[in-house]
């Protein structure tokens, strides 16, 4: 890597936004130049995040934050340590490098350290849109008005919402010749409408890399409609129900599978995918209509084509037609087990089916329609049983129709059980519940025997 003798002054001037590839590479090179370690890795994250919140029918807080952090990992043999700084001056970088080296020398060995990656080939993925990066405060305020204006005009609703946009660049370079760079934007809008009598609440959201793709009016309409329809909920006995999960609700519970797919935990005998003497890879563990993949190049939810070490990430199929195809391997565990590293099971997409929400409701004699889930926590790592609650629009379905709004339920159930009990599956859509985090694409699904364990009075 070429190392410029002096770094352009303008990059250290205020205000600095998102660094270009050349600027990032220069910064990485400048830090590596100071390294005296056996190996070093420098990661640069530059970002500008803008946001606007509103609640109680008025704008509350809003702001903009710009920052660039530099993470230096220094390694001597198998001793390693990292320092993160946001001081981009030569002096600041030298201090970060020297400090990480001093700590690394004192640290015990990490026998799992495999050395730094050399130069890699990455797929091109488009995750950047100028429309998002250049968004103005005026545009955000105008977007908020699409919900604030109708709520104030009608006198029967109170809205609370959040608009968050980020523009960022991640760069990773190593002393072994690696350089990876990806810049991304994300735009996310979520809205909760509540009726002023306190009995109804509706939520809707939208998420895209491109701000111009967000339909704020549609979100307002959807949330307000749900708030009105969810008014005056009645109590229905908890128990096992046929449940239709809208895409956000599916995402809330199925996303928990991602973290559980680690090969190491399964091999160590402490995961839901362990079995006496091995793992469940190759076994049919859920309904054959379920296929779950991660693919950075997926145009619906594009993501960075490399992970935090600079490892290229390609499409991975975790579950195919209900069969557990493979688990997620880190570099170390893949090396030890003679496998290929996969990256984490993030940016999950469940492939869709041909059912529609309307057809799934029409085919239901008695069931529950769920908008989204809240406060999910694991209760048993071996079964992936989670607890949590329904929220912001829960309805009883009777004889093929939405009959009435019902009180929220607490559940204790597992995505593994749920996806075994599949009755229907719709088209996969990008969900918005992650507040601009990694994209998740899930369908509306219908399952039988879902376990609601108690009622909640919360609206």
């Amino acid at each position, binding site marked *: 890597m070429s190392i410029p003798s002096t770094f352009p002054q303008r990059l250290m001037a205020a205000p600095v936004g998102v660094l270009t590839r050349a600027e990032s590479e220069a910064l990485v090179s400048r830090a590596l130049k100071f390294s005296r370690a056996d190996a070093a890795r420098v990661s640069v994250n530059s970002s500008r995040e803008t946001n606007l919140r509103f609640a109680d029918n008025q704008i509350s807080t809003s702001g903009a934050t710009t920052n660039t952090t530099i993470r230096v990992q220094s390694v001597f043999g198998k001793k390693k340590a990292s320092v993160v700084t946001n001081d981009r001056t030569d002096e600041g970088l030298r201090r970060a490098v*020297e400090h990480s080296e001093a700590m690394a020398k004192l640290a015990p060995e990490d026998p799992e350290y495999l050395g730094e990656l050399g130069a890699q080939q990455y797929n091109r993925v488009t995750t950047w849109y100028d429309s998002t990066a250049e968004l103005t405060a005026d545009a955000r305020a105008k977007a908020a008005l699409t919900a604030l204006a109708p709520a104030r005009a009608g006198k029967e609703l109170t809205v609370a919402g959040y608009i968050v946009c980020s523009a960022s660049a991640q760069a990773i370079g190593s002393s072994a010749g690696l350089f990876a760079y990806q810049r991304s934007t994300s735009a996310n809008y979520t809205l909760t409408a*509540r009726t002023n009598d306190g009995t109804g609440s509706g939520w809707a959201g939208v998420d895209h890399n491109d701000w111009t793709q967000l339909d704020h009016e549609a979100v307002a309409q959807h949330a307000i409609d749900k708030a009105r329809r969810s008014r005056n909920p009645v109590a229905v006995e908890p128990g096992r129900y046929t449940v239709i999960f809208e895409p956000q609700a599916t995402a809330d519970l199925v996303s928990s599978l991602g973290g559980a797919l680690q090969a190491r935990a399964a091999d160590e005998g402490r995961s839901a995918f362990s079995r006496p003497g091995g793992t469940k890879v190759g076994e049919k563990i859920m309904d054959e209509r379920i296929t779950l993949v991660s693919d950075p190049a997926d145009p619906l939810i594009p993501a960075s084509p490399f992970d935090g070490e600079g490892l290229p990430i390609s499409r991975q199929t975790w579950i195919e037609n209900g069969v557990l195809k493979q688990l997620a391997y880190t570099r170390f565990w893949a090396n030890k087990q003679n496998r290929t590293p996969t990256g984490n099971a993030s940016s999950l997409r469940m492939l869709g089916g041909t059912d529609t929400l309307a057809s799934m409701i029409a085919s239901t004699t008695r069931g529950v329609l769920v908008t989204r889930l809240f406060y999910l926590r694991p209760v048993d790592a071996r079964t992936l049983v989670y607890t949590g609650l329904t929220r912001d629009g829960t309805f009883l379905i009777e004889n093929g129709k939405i009959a009435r709004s019902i009180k929220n339920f607490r559940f*204790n159930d597992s995505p593994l059980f749920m996806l075994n009990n599949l009755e229907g599956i719709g088209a996969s859509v990008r969900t918005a519940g992650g507040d601009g985090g990694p994209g998740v694409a899930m369908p509306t699904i219908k399952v039988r025997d879902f376990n609601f364990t108690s009622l909640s009075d*919360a609206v």
Partner: protein
Amino acid sequence: MAIFVRSLSPRIMTTRRDFLKRGSATLGALAVGPSLLAANSPHAELAKAPGTVPLRVHALPPVYTDAATRELMMEALDAAKRYGASWADVRISRNRNNSVQTREQQVTDVVDTDTMGCGVRVLVEGCWGFCATQELTKPGVGAAAQEAVAIAKANRVAQDRRVTLAPAPAHPNATWRSAYTVDPFTIPIEQKADVLLRANAEALKVPSVRFVNSGLSFIKEERNYANTDGSVITQDYVRSWVTLSCTAISADRTQTAVRGPEVVQPAARGWEYVLGADIVTNAQKWGEEAAEKLTARSVDVGRYDLILHPSQLFLTIHESLAHPTELDRAMGYEANYAGTSFIAPPEKVLGQLKLGPPMMNLIGNRSEVGALATIGYDDDGVQPNDFHIVKDGMFNDYQTTREQAPWLDWWYKKNGQPSRSHGCSYAQSWADVAFQRMPNVSLQPGDKDVSWNDLIAATDKGIAMIGRSSYSIDQQRYNAQFGAQLCYEIKGGKIVGQLKDVAYQMRTPDFWNSLDMLGGQSSYEFGGTFNDGKGQPGQSNAVSHGCPPTRFRNVNVINTGRAS
């Protein structure tokens, strides 16, 4: 715009160079005096346990607002006013984190984070604007002030009501430091790793314990604050947390049991606190508790009297009482994220909602020594006060900031109290906007000297629960489900063995009204977390809850095991 005053940055606060000198020095001995330990550590006697090294005192450097930082803060405030702000405040801080993580015999991660920057918050015609920058130069903070004003102005098109702030006295030259005696950032990394790896080795002596993860996390912040009322405040605080989890696995690999990782409560204390926790001596016991859980009896569902240890109860207080008494939540400000509150609207619940028996008193404070939310001045520049959230079982007050206190003028007037902020404004770093965050919210002990063992002896059919585990609560804080790391069956006033698959499901007002016995002052302990999430974008608040072990009658217990 593009002028970079290179020489300013390194002079701000303690410089990174000073830090490096201290951080990498080979301190052969620990900087702790026995007398300091005795005065400040709840586990002082444990610090003398085998395996700890001799003690030596290093004085902490003085806390003051240095001239360069003060100048930058004044520039930010001046710029905000110049561009049109009616009120502004500024925070320039240095935020540091140190983390050492291990598993079994090896270190998995050593990370030191050190960032500095400036956040400017403004009011323009009653609209908020905020901007944060890492450019610690006059043009840098000036540009941030300008953008904060521009954002506030843009928001006026959607304005409905103006924000007004409760008056607060100015503190023109204030400093404060939290209750630590040894700065953990002066302890060499190998010493930290050594404590963890020795603890892991002790836990792994238990045959069925196959995996151990442990870690140390430290936070240190030098927080400088100034506002247009004339306050200039510098504060220095340290927070420490040591975690350890033991995973036991049955011989046939069908059962897994975990004790931890929250086996030691985090505290606003330093390295002396880590030593006091003595994880090396305790690790084997924690491992044995995990192993015993493998063969524990699965609980029978039904109603039990629960005796909740402070390490478990603190989280129930946090979720079911502390969150719903945040005034912004009650007013709908968190409706799109964490939710609203069953303790609302204020005019229908203040002085009217009975949350528990007359023996129940809950105090919001940022003053308890060593508790995580304790601070000298909040991020509105307010000196916090202690206040009764629940008084003799009745709901009495909300957590407030300067923006929120005026909303309750009528209530304070009715009670002959001044209308003032309780000092609950907080931002997790310079990069984040301040808003209402939880102070320490603590359940007061009972009048009698009742102990954990006394509560057990007084209970015929019950379950004693220790340590936080799975926890979930709805968006208005009515329906909650809490587990525990360790559950012990009580029969006839005695513990008869461990239970597994235990969780209690409760409706908040019913649960707190079932409280019938409180431990005494000597049984009062803190539980806490670094990671209380709130807001969009999400921010972490560190908060502690003091409480005694407490008994609740006839609570619904469910079985979370596989058969359920």
